[in-house]
């Protein structure tokens, strides 16, 4: 593996109720986060292809970890998202190289499908920086009940020469969705949008 991983963390959140109203079954989401060394920390490097390969490796690893933490088959995942935080000696473009060119394909392989764009966010930050991973339905980006976000952070990452990379998956949308829009039973699933 090209990625030098210092640490992996997996988070599983279950929401059982909101405003005393039961959420049944509970809405569940999981995020897997890897803390890796940034091979290009501290210098400007033109060719970022090593980070793209690292993105491909982490796409498979993190999607597998997150899905297995939910304990469901990959094809029953409903929404997903990804994010990265670059330590202070790196540049935002390093996060882009990990997230955008190659990370998505292995994620979709783990999930069986995934016609929609994987929503993403990125930033540069210090130890304990908060990543808000945007979430959207994996087959139809316009499904309104599944627009969401999941916050993750690790107190000891990213160090200056590190990058934190996260993939999140869910088995449901928001806990008690009721703002209309396209619903998941109306998905055509052809163009990734509706």
């Amino acid at each position, binding site marked *: 593996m090209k990625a030098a*991983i210092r*640490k992996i*963390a997996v*988070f599983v959140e*279950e929401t059982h*109720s909101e405003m*005393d109203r039961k959420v049944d079954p509970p809405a569940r989401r999981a995020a897997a986060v890897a803390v890796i060394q940034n091979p290009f920390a501290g210098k400007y490097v033109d060719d970022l292809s090593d980070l793209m390969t690292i993105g491909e490796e982490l796409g498979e690893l993190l999607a597998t970890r997150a899905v297995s*933490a939910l304990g469901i088959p990959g094809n029953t995942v409903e929404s997903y998202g990804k994010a990265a935080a670059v330590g202070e000696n790196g540049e935002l473009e390093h996060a882009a190289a990990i997230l955008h060119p190659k990370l998505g394909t292995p994620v979709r392989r783990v999930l069986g499908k995934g016609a929609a764009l994987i929503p993403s966010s990125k930033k540069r930050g210090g130890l304990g920086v908060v990543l808000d991973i945007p979430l959207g339905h994996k087959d139809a980006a316009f499904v309104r009940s599944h627009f969401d976000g999941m916050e993750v952070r690790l107190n000891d990452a990213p160090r200056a020469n590190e990058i934190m990379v996260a993939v999140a998956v869910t088995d449901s949308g928001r806990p008690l969705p009721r703002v209309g829009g396209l619903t998941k039973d109306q998905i055509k699933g052809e163009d990734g949008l509706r």
Partner: protein
Amino acid sequence: MPDVQIRKRLTVVEEIFHEGGPVATTPLKRAAALAIIHNPYAGKYVSDIASFMDDLKPLGLGMAQALVAALGGNPKNIEGYGKGAIVGSAGELEHGALWHVPGGYAMREILGDAKAIVASTKKVGGPGTRLDVPITHINASYVRSHFDAMEVGLNDAPRADEILLALVMTTGPRVHARVGGLKASEIKGEDGLR
């Protein structure tokens, strides 16, 4: 007796491969189980609160079991533990103290014959408050390699009338432990201290 009403659960598993030194042959794992419950005493002074400790026992056992499962399923692999609570703003610190008995004894029961007192911390705080849960060896508090801590928290908890309850377990010493002191191999295991 008030019911225990759970709004949300969170499980976090960290897998630590190295921290700048040699890569561990067996990575250290730390896991935390969090439950966000309604505080039945929020907003008022209630003199007699101790009975709620009994109500919390099944929750403690469930969380301890979930932690062992998250760390591979074998209680024999658990070497460190700790517990903590964050009380929402409409509650008092004493409500956090309700967690000592059900949280601590649950872990000791699940782990068989754990002898050491369960390290703990607590505070009052708003949503997003972080808690550094202290960790010590399960059979001998003085084992220096196992003094550790895990930071936990949730962006949307605890709300004013909630309590965040946390249990933490680890599978071994700090990843590069090397400051001497009592070793795990030297434990007498009689008094829970050495």
